């Protein structure tokens, strides 16, 4: 889970989707990757078209046009909102309601790139992303699109059987979430840190026992009585 701006979107089924918005830095990096890819394509084909003389020159100009204006649009519209650069950075363009980007949406946001690039190096677009509560540049505002992170989370499946113990106090929702978060993430902490955290729950016990007790309680929450 990324710690970043999150946006809640309600689907027609009444489920709340939580989108994690991508800030200027991953977007700038994705843009740089795309720029490099475009330059490589242009250079490679320039070599081939050069052999065709003036007609090749004409084709090369058309290619430059397509790369400049339609490279992002075509990729975003037909590759699930991702240019190769965005894919590499794990970000994707969607409509503000979380639905996939349409051709029109992509075209609007990419045609208006010129305004975002004003006056130099996307300065205006950068300022807009910082001001906008949803990290939108001008093109995104006009097209009503968002750039979000795509997250890959493996479902927790580790089953470490062990002692399991009912908590000795009435859990509220926040307690339960805190305990479950500890259960999932305790592997990332050092033993000392785990014990320190366990002491928050059982200040009266020795550190090692507190941790053992806490593990038993969290296991109970996930798996039920042993």
């Amino acid at each position, binding site marked *: 889970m990324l710690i970043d701006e999150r946006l809640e979107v309600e689907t027609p089924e009444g489920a709340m989707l939580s989108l994690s918005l991508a800030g200027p830095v991953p977007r700038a990096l994705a843009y740089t990757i795309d720029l490099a890819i475009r330059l490589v394509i242009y250079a490679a084909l320039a070599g081939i078209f050069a052999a065709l003389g003036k007609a090749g020159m004409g084709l090369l*100009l058309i290619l430059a046009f397509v790369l400049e204006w339609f490279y992002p649009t075509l990729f975003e519209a037909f590759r699930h909102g991702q240019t190769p650069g965005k894919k590499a950075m794990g970000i994707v363009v969607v409509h503000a309601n979380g639905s996939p980007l349409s051709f029109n949406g992509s075209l609007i946001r990419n045609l208006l790139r010129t305004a975002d690039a004003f006056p130099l190096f996307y300065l205006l677009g950068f300022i807009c992303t910082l001001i906008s509560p949803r990290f939108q540049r001008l093109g995104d505002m006009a097209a009503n699109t968002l750039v979000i992170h795509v997250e890959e989370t493996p479902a927790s499946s580790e089953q470490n059987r062990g002692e399991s113990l009912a908590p000795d106090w009435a859990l509220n929702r926040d307690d339960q979430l805190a305990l479950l978060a500890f259960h999932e993430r305790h592997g990332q902490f050092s033993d000392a840190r785990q014990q320190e955290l366990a002491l928050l729950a059982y200040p009266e016990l020795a550190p090692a026992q507190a941790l053992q007790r806490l593990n038993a309680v969290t296991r109970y929450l996930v798996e039920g009585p042993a």
Partner: protein
Amino acid sequence: MKQARFEQQYRPEWQALENQLEQLESLHVSKKNKLPLNTFVTDYRKLCHQLALARERGYSVQLQQFLNNLVLRAHRQLYRYNPSLADRIGTFLASGFPRAVRRQWRWHLVSALAFVLSMALVWVLVHQQPEMIYTVVDEASIANLESMYQPDNQADMKSERSGDDDVMMFGHYIQNNIGIAFRTFASGLLLGVGALVVMLFNGSFFGAAAGHLINVGAQEPFFTFVIAHGAPELTAIVLAGGAGLRLGWAIIAPGPWSRLDALRLAARDALPTMYGVFSLLLLAAFIEAFWSPRDLAPTIKYSVGAVCWVLLYLYLFFGGRDGTREG
């Protein structure tokens, strides 16, 4: 129900849905309806329900996130909108584009006036005082213009010009002119200033070129060259300017909407015009590269040019008027 049992019970369903999603995501739109999708919607609704349960019962954040991501993916597949492309292009050219242009006639009129008035002003100035050309256009461009349209140079150029040159110029017109039109549109977003500046600049330049070439006696090569493709090309630039002004005005005076909503509406409204501008400029590039440089009698070129103008404006004024008024 404890989380582990919940996961155990529903994991096979999630797995199945995940597999189906993988297939859906990898297939092209047109082949998707061949998949067995009759349970997809029900599965999706169940998944939404399970996500809500997981949240309500306070299952772990990781599980919630897994379900959330799965819902997101299914959502993206379910709410995809796929009409047939050929139909849409046909309807658009037959009626959508001229209607879109007429719906925003005020902006296009402002844009056209900016272009035509600046052109007329500079044209008359240069015509009255020939040396004025040097204050409007730099010397290199003047020399370039003169060499392109001097009657004596014309003969050489035309005999030298081959099919390859035509293709090269075609590419040049596409890259240059369509790029200018798109940029004009986008720069309209900067409170309309950008679009207006482009209109004034291009109008003045065209006026200066025309006035100067008449002064040096090169009017015939010039006008026989520009008259035919001028119709789609100049019109398209003016329309791009108008669409840009529409965007800028949405920010200056959003009316009853918030500025953000006004901008969104304006962009949606202006987009058909930009598709049309793109088509017109493709047409213009084609005419300019393959017809305009042909060495034919001026009467033929003027008549073809006049036909282009008349047809284009008949299309823009009357295309798509089938009696049913649309809002």
